[in-house]
């Protein structure tokens, strides 16, 4: 077949018709039955129909493909125009009117219409629409004519100009109308679409049809026609639905409705040939809105599912169908209906009541607008003008990614929000990897999020998921720890007397969990620190801070780079139990020197210490040895290399820590070793932190001659950190973790102990003084 060129109008019309015929929804083939019905509705003689079928190639193919269908339609238009059927003329005839089809339920009507020769139909540029039986002589048939049939009851209503609609028409009157139509002037042919056959709308028992006629025939070109059709079809005569809305200029359609489900249905079905049957007319929409208001006065609010259920149950449709309608119309699956959703649902109910089958998926015209669109028509091409509901901007966003994300981002999965969230949801899935803040929620302890840009890496999403799964802090990028340090430091400072800086500091580098996240945003580290810091004071009082989240060893494989792993491993180790994977090369020099120094500097620690030391004799012997060490070492154990500075703020803490740490230290290492340089041996890493500690210790104890060394070492340490060999296996981590926990507990208890002992001492002193006084007074009393 030769190729077919169609004008836009034609294109639209034909495609609508095709859709109408495409009952199987195959989008490729129009069912033969429907097509033949349609052709018959074109009021052509059978042999002409056969000829057309043959010409378009359908007989060859055996079915009506889209191109065949279009060709056939064009041929029908040709035939209806009285032109000879020729293939060549398909493209050559200009200004061919659209093929007209008649929807005739009523045989009579058809007969009547058939009576009227085609010639009258010449030239109507009217868009064709499946009109009621009877053809519409082109211009002449203006609305009046249409109306005529409609107004069967008031047959004599020559009032062509005013499309009066009589609610009840009866088919028999249609001939009447026909008779009239001749007289009619084309009232407003110009503005009233030269429409179609005014013949009978017999089925329009209800006035609706009549009103439709008016509106519809307003179509000079497809759009209004379509519109009216739509309205007609869309307003099933369910009891209170308002009828159509006239789109054309003169509509005075009064709303009607009476329900004659059957006939209107039929007509509707046939009528919906090229019109989208699911469009909601303005009147319908208004009606729906009113109904919505009765349930929920706020138009921007939701109707809860239960209320909707009651409401729709009133329509007496079977529950299964209502359930299906609900599924279709609850767009965002939130269990509540917005105004748009409600209108769609109501529309579907109405359609169903009128015999329409429910679609498998929501028609486009019923899709709720995700964004507030300008409702004014003319969104697209002319044909679309009349449509009352603008096309949906965004398709439903049930992207497959959402379900997968839902589990990970429960906080985002709030489907019962406004439409905006819908798109947000979709966008969030793409933006997840970009925003740092997404990670913050994973850590419930933190309220503040340190904004840090996330580096995008392939493993980012995975890492984020991992992050979500555990609330652990993430690794900071190797370079970021340095950056993180200052914030960490500042935070630490603020917190002061933080007992467990170790955890926080460790977090700075912390590899507590995610080995994989090499580029975890610093924020997470920072936030983690905060949380730890936050908990540490409480920890001091009561229980040790929560143990670090379990390390996902499995994730190790995901680590981006070897270095990172190494780093994190090292850091983690350090953090855990102070057994940081510092380069073994760093000798625990501070330890031996410090041990020698310690005693003298004890006082620096404060009052508590002496008493403390006195009261804890068992600890004392070791304390001197450990004095600074323990502090350093303990802290080293506790903190990563970074936090040493801040940690020292708490002198008391330090003291207590020292005492306790001594014990712990002792446990871990023989005192002897501590005293000697060998102290470092058991824990090569600790020296590093110790050194750091030294740095802070400088403030506390002036005498650390090693400090300068240490401080110099510190940068070295830092530098070396990056190169910490991966040798320190995770096997130590468990031990280190437990060690740290124990140490923390010890610290708390030790402090408590020291305080209580102090109090005891005071009380004892008071007692002594009181006794003395008593003694002094007693003699007096005797006297």
């Amino acid at each position: 077949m030769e190729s077919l060129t169609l004008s836009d109008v034609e294109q639209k019309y034909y495609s609508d018709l095709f859709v109408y015929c495409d009952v199987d929804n195959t989008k490729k083939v129009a069912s033969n039955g429907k097509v033949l019905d349609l052709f018959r509705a074109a009021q052509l003689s059978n042999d002409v129909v056969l000829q057309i079928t043959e010409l378009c190639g359908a007989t060859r193919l055996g079915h009506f493909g889209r191109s065949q269908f279009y060709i056939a339609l064009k041929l029908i238009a040709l035939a209806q125009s009285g032109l000879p059927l020729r293939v060549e003329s398909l493209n050559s005839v200009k200004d061919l009117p659209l093929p007209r089809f008649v929807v005739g339920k009523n045989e009579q009507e058809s007969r009547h219409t058939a009576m009227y020769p085609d010639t009258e139909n010449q030239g109507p540029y009217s868009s064709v629409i499946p009109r009621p039986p009877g053809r519409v002589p082109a211009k002449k048939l203006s609305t009046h004519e249409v109306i005529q049939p409609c107004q069967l009851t008031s047959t004599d209503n020559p009032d062509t100009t005013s499309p009066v609609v009589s609610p009840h028409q009866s088919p028999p009157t249609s001939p009447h109308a026909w008779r009239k139509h001749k007289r009619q002037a084309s009232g407003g042919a110009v503005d009233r679409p030269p429409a179609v056959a005014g013949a009978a709308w017999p089925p329009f028992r209800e006035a609706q049809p009549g009103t439709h006629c008016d509106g519809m025939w307003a179509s000079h070109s497809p759009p209004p026609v379509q519109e009216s059709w739509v309205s007609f079809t869309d307003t099933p005569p369910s009891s209170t639905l308002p009828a159509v809305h006239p789109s054309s200029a003169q509509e005075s359609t009064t709303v009607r409705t009476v329900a004659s489900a059957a006939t209107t249905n039929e007509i509707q079905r046939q009528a919906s040939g090229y019109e989208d049957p699911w469009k909601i007319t303005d009147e319908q929409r208004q009606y729906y809105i009113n109904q919505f208001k009765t349930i929920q006065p706020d138009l921007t609010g939701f109707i809860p599912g239960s209320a909707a259920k009651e409401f729709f149950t009133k329509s007496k449709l079977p529950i299964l169908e209502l359930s299906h309608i609900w599924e279709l119309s609850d767009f965002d699956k939130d269990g509540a209906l917005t105004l748009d959703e409600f209108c769609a649902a109501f529309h579907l109910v109405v359609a169903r009541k009128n015999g329409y089958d429910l679609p498998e998926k929501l028609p486009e015209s019923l899709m709720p607008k995700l964004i507030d669109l300008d409702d004014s028509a003319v969104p697209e091409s002319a044909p679309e003008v009349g449509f009352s509901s603008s096309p949906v901007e965004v398709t439903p966003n049930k992207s497959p990614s959402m379900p997968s994300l839902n589990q990970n981002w429960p906080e985002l999965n709030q489907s019962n929000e406004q439409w905006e969230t819908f798109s947000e949801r979709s966008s969030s899935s793409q933006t997840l990897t970009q925003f740092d803040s997404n990670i913050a929620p994973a850590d419930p302890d933190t309220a503040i999020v340190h904004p840090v840009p996330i580096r995008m890496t392939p493993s980012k999403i995975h890492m984020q998921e991992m992050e979500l799964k555990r609330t652990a802090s993430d690794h900071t990028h190797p370079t970021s720890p340095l950056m993180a340090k200052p914030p960490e430091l500042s935070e630490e400072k603020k917190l002061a007397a933080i007992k467990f800086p170790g955890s926080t500091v460790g977090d700075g580098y912390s590899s507590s969990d995610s080995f994989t996240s090499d580029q975890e945003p610093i924020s997470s580290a920072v936030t983690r620190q905060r949380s730890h810091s936050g908990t540490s004071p409480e920890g001091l009082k009561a229980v040790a801070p929560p143990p670090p989240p379990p390390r996902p060893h499995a994730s190790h494989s995901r680590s981006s780079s070897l270095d990172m792993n190494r780093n994190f491993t090292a850091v983690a180790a350090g953090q855990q139990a102070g057994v940081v994977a510092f380069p073994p090369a760093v000798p625990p020099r501070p330890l031996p020197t410090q041990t020698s120094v310690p005693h003298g500097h004890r006082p620096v620690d404060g009052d508590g210490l002496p008493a403390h030391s006195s009261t804890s004799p068992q600890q004392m012997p070791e304390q001197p040895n450990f004095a600074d060490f323990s502090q350093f070492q303990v802290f080293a154990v506790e903190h990563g290399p970074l936090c040493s500075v801040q940690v020292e703020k708490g002198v008391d803490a330090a003291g207590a820590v020292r005492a306790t740490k001594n014990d712990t230290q002792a446990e871990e290492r023989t005192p002897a070793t501590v005293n000697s340089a060998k102290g470092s041996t058991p824990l090569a890493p600790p020296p590093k932190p110790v050194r750091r500690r030294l740095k802070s210790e400088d403030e506390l104890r002036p005498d650390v001659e090693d400090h300068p060394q240490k401080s110099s070492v510190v940068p070295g340490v830092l530098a070396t950190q990056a190169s910490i060999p991966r040798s320190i296996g995770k096997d130590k981590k468990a031990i280190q973790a437990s060690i740290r926990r124990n140490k923390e507990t010890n610290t708390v208890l030790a402090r408590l102990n020291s305080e209580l002992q102090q109090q005891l001492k005071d009380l004892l002193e008071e007692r002594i003084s009181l006794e003395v006084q008593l003694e002094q007074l007693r003699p007096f009393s005797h006297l």
Partner: protein
Amino acid sequence: MAVCVAVIAKENYPLYIRSVPTQNELKFHYTVHTSLDVVEEKVSAVGKALPDQRELYLGLLYPTEDYKVYGYVTNSKVKFVIVVDSSNTSLRDNEIRSMFRKLHSSFTDVMCNPFYNPGDTIQSKSFDSIVSAMMVQSS
């Protein structure tokens, strides 16, 4: 690539069960029924730990020579069971997980429907279509 998909309610009666029709459906019904025991076992084993740690995805429940059975349980003790044909290229764990996620989300949508009474069999077309999509891929 499921050969059979089943949704079982908390009280262990089926809310929805569907198999590839060519096969002997009774066999699958039986398989699903026996798999419930395994599900219970897994749930109670993990249940000793905190509920937070309980994973929804239960993994491979048990393999037979013909097929493998995977389980998934929701927080409201509704169980999803998928039977997969072993002869198919074995599916990765992630794929099975994603199938369960889809099922779960679709099930949630069904639940949200006010016209659905919990405990009724699931007759939702959208749910059916999602299940069909899963089953069609396989065969």
